[in-house]
């Protein structure tokens, strides 16, 4: 079989079997039980909540992230095996939402880990969650969900941003590009 065809089958399989990390990072976790249970039943699409990050493919970051949680989120994300996908759930992951002036929550998730799909709203309805999963499946099918590759490629930048948030200070704001220029 050709390599390309093989890849295509592999993508079809992985889109039909998205295992999710069972990590309630914020209040969005409240709408996850209805989505997982009888009313909306995510398992129809092969989506299943997994207990540990090693077994999972999708990381649903449910809602706002306190900096203390961000540390765990990054750890969990790094423990997941490639290919892995991130869904940012709710307004809080997009721009801070309700907590735009809170000193302890991050405002834009994509600065710290790559996000494939965002869901808007506070809270997003279960239909929106399922829709986002379908969108993600579509992206996997087309080979567009490449957040995990981005994380490898721009690892220094993500790490720099994470460090700034973890330490609550902007000591080395210099973009990495300029550093390179200075050295050369």
């Amino acid at each position: 079989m050709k390599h390309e065809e093989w890849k295509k089958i592999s993508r079809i399989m992985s889109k039909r079997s998205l295992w999710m990390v069972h990590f309630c990072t914020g209040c969005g976790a409240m709408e996850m039980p209805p989505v997982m249970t009888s009313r909306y039943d995510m398992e129809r699409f092969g989506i299943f909540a997994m207990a540990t990050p090693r077994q999972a493919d999708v990381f649903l970051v449910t809602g706002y992230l306190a900096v203390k949680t961000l540390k765990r989120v990054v750890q969990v994300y790094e423990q997941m095996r490639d290919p892995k996908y991130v869904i940012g759930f709710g307004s809080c992951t997009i721009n801070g939402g309700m907590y735009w002036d809170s000193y302890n929550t991050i405002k834009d998730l994509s600065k710290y880990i790559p996000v494939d799909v965002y869901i808007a709203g506070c809270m997003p309805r279960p239909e929106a969650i399922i829709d986002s999963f379908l969108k993600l499946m579509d992206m996997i099918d087309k080979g567009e969900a490449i957040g995990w590759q981005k994380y490898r490629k721009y690892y220094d930048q993500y790490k720099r941003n994470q460090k700034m948030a973890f330490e609550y200070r902007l000591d080395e704001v210099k973009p990495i590009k300029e550093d390179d220029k200075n050295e050369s």
Partner: protein
Amino acid sequence: MVMEIVDILEKILILAGMVTLGFAIGMLFNGIARKVSARIQNRVGPPVYQGFIDVFKLFGKKTNISHGWIFDLAALFSVSGIALAFLFLPVAGYSMLSTDGDLFLILYLLAIPALGFALGAGASGNPNAAVGVMRALMSMLAYELPLVMVMVAMMVYYNTTSLANIVAAQANMQWAFFIPIFFIGALVADMALQGMLMEKPFDIPIAPHEIATGPMVEFGGKHLGALMLYKMMGTVVETTLFVDLFLGGGVVLSVAQYGWLAYLVNFAVWFVLILIVFLIAVMIDNVLPRFRIEQALKFYWKYDALIAIFILIWIFAGVKI
């Protein structure tokens, strides 16, 4: 000389085919179990072929890290061990690698993959996995006692240690299940089967709410795929063992009389029987909580084993009289 080589090749081909069939049935059973659970829980559930997709996807995942070569080998060890166990079982009256003393051999072969699994989990160094392995070994100790006693009773009754002979003795629908004493024995063994299949109330080793899936905590990607294959094949092997012991291996037609048609019908019956046995386990799984490990030990050794001893005494007495 040529004929011999052809014979061996044919044998290998059949064995490979059987193993593949076993894995396929295991994957199908995984999907069926999830579908049935979903229906009990008022849900639609995944498609029945979900098991295939999951395993395929897991093998397509990249391996970022490893916990050492024991960890890598353990999963392989489990899968090959369980496949070997499957080959030593008579399936629908058709024995592949059966020999005379194979009932004990099968018990050992069933323990080997579990040990491999435990080894891998231990190598991962996660405390949850360590607790899970302890629990897995303890529950193995627990359910094997009543199971072995019932098996010994059967060996004495049928005067053989070979599973193939036990199956043969139950031909013409003279299943052990219909003998009152072994009907009780079947119930005892079914409880042990519940523990072997790691279904509730005996899913203590993987209890997600307590130890986050226990031994499987650090497994992911290809390792988890292999483990899932092991577990799926495990359901087939364990239910087949039960069917062989009590339901005559699903043999309804004699091969000598009907030829290839008998094979076909027997395989169909065997499939239906292991499915029924498995579904009973799944349904019990869905309505019961899990025991604590010492409660499981108590259950197996106090109630299950006591009935098994009663069966043993009955059989020995019957033989003497």
